[in-house]
């Protein structure tokens, strides 16, 4: 949970539904369904895999510092174990 924004997970989707009902009984809630965006992280939930990216957040930072037009340079992101 992040103040008033919360994510919930469970193996059995029916139990997620039960939790939502319990919360709605006590507070006024919006059910945003399957998670797609949380704290600047863009989440994609697919049948066999999940994706996380922060493209929007990165763009916002570039805009904030006026560096959107700067040329791109490849940067190593591959992990190496020693």
């Amino acid at each position, binding site marked *: *949970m*992040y*103040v*008033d*924004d*919360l*994510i*919930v*997970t*469970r*193996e059995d*989707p029916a139990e*997620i539904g039960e*939790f*939502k009902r*319990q*919360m709605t009984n*006590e*507070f*006024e*809630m*919006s*059910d*945003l*369904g*399957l*998670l*797609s*965006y*949380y*704290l600047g*992280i863009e*989440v994609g*939930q697919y049948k*066999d*895999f*999940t994706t*996380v990216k922060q493209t929007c957040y990165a763009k916002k930072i570039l805009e904030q510092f006026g560096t959107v037009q700067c040329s791109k340079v490849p940067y190593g992101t591959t992990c190496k174990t020693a």
Partner: protein
Amino acid sequence: MNDIYEHTSVIELMYDSDGEALLVEMEEPTSYQEAAGYVEWTKAMDKDIQSFEKNKTWKLCQLRVGHRPIRLKWVFKLKKNSDGEVVKHKARLVSKGYVQKKGVDFDEVFAPVARLDTVRLILAMVANRGWQVHHLDVKSAFLHGELDEEVYVKQPEGYEVKGKENHVLRLSKALYGLRQAPRAWNLRLDRYLKKLKFRRCASEQGVYIRGE
């Protein structure tokens, strides 16, 4: 061209009571006085006041000696859709919490929030197990927080009770802007989650677990 669009404010055609067309620049008022003349803003304020009454946020009473009432302020916001059209007039009553003194008007303000690493960790675990993650949002969460301290606020502008103008409101629930609002909300949520048999993670207080 885009630049011109972006720097021109929205002009709306309004008709006054004589049926004459007036060109009015639609902006967000910065005070009650500015907003009071407009039906849309008055309606928005009425709606906000009604929600406080429904929520039993306050009680009209006389100020107890030794206490100082916090002043309130109306904040106005126009909600626009992606085309820039006004879709909603929103009025929110906030308290000027910055005048509150620690130990007098409030004690603790800390409220835990989940760390980004925790969110990533949960997403990784869930992806590994093939579970679903759902997203929920509590509407006007801070207004659910119950107050332990004795907090008084002045009556909101435009909604003073006739004949009792010098009375104040004793708050039982938090308002936006109140220093203890985040904590009061968190305590309320914590109590409810524990009632639902959730356990709070000791090292990461923004995480709760139910069952095994």
